[in-house]
C-alpha cells in the first residue's frame, strides 16, 4: 500500500474527497453552464440519476419526463452516476473489496421501496445531501433548511431504532 492510499483510508480521507467534489463541481459549472442551468449542479447523486433515466427515456420513447435544462439540451444527459459506478468498481477491484453480496427478498423490498421514496423526497427538495452542500456553498440559504431537515431526519430515525431495540425487537 502506498502513501496516497493511506491518506484516503485515514481520518483525513473524506476531507480530501470533500474538497475534490467542491472544486470539481465549480469546474463543471464553468465548463457546462453554457449548455443550460441550473447553478450549483456540478454533482448530485439524485438529480443526475433523474436526468440520466428521464433523459434516456425521453430519447428512446419520445416522452417528456422532467429533467434539468443542461441534460435536455446536451447531446446526451449527464453521465455522472455511470461514472461513479465505473470508478467504484475500479477502486473495489484494485483493493480486492469487490464481492457479490446477495440479498434476501425482504431486503430487496425494503431497499427498492427506500430508493423510490428517497427519490421523491430528494426531488421535492431539488437536491441530494451533496447538491445541498453545493447550494449552500453557492449562497443558497434555503438549502440550509434542507440540511437541517436531513439532520433532524437522521436524529429521528436513530431515536426510532434505539426505541425498537429497547422494546425487545
Amino acid at each position: 500500500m502506498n502513501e496516497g492510499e493511506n491518506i484516503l483510508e485515514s481520518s483525513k480521507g473524506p476531507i480530501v474527497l470533500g474538497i475534490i467534489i467542491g472544486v470539481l463541481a465549480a469546474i463543471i459549472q464553468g465548463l457546462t453552464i453554457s449548455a443550460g442551468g441550473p447553478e450549483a449542479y456540478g454533482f448530485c447523486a439524485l438529480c443526475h440519476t433523474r436526468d440520466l433515466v428521464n433523459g434516456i427515456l425521453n430519447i428512446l420513447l419520445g416522452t417528456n419526463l422532467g429533467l434539468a435544462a443542461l441534460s435536455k439540451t446536451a447531446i446526451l444527459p449527464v453521465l455522472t452516476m455511470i461514472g461513479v459506478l465505473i470508478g467504484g468498481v475500479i477502486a473495489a477491484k484494485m483493493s480486492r473489496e469487490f464481492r457479490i453480496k446477495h440479498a434476501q427478498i425482504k431486503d430487496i423490498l425494503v431497499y427498492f421501496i427506500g430508493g423510490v421514496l428517497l427519490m421523491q423526497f430528494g426531488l421535492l427538495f431539488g437536491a441530494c445531501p451533496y447538491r445541498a452542500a453545493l447550494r449552500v456553498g453557492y449562497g443558497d440559504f434555503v438549502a440550509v433548511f434542507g440540511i437541517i431537515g436531513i439532520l433532524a431526519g437522521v436524529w429521528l430515525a436513530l431515536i426510532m431504532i434505539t426505541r425498537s431495540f429497547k422494546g425487545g425487537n
Partner: protein
Amino acid sequence: MAAGWISMELSLILVPFITLVSGCIIGYFAQKTGFCAIGGFRDYIMFRHTRLLNGFIAMIISAAVAFFIFNMITPMAFENFPWMMTKGLLSAVPGAPADLSQVAYIILALIGGVGMGVIGVYVGGCPLRQFVMTAEGSMKSLWFVIGMVVGSVIFYLVTSGFVVGLMKSMGL
C-alpha cells in the same frame, strides 16, 4: 444567458464526457474513503465521530471558495453568486418543482430533508454511498439504485403534480 468557459456548441457535446469523467473520479475516491453524507451525520449523533462529517463540511467550504475564486475570474459562468445577496435571502437555487412561493420551497426543503435523513439511516447510507456499495457488489444497494431509477419516473408521473397541486391549493 450564462456564458461558461467554453462555447455553447462545444459544451452541448462535452456535457456527457465531462460528467462521466468527474463521476469516475468521485466514485473511485468515494470507494476508497467510504464517503457518506448521511453516515457523517449518523456517526456524529451516535458516537461523536467526525471523520465523515468533516468531509461534508470540507465539501461546503471548498465549494464556496471555488465558486468565489472562479466567480472573480469569470463572473458570467457563475451568475447570481452569492445567491442570497443577489436574489434575496429566502430565494432557492432552481431544482425543486417550478413556480412555487418561497415559503413552499422552505417547507419542501424541510420535508425532503427529513425524508432523506430517515430513509438514509434505515438503508445505511446516502444515495452516493448506495451507488458505491453497488459497485462493491452489494445486491441490496443495487435494488436501492433500481428503486431510484423507478422513482425518477414516478416523481414526474405522480408526485410532482400532486405536491405542486397541494401546495397551490394551500395558497403557497
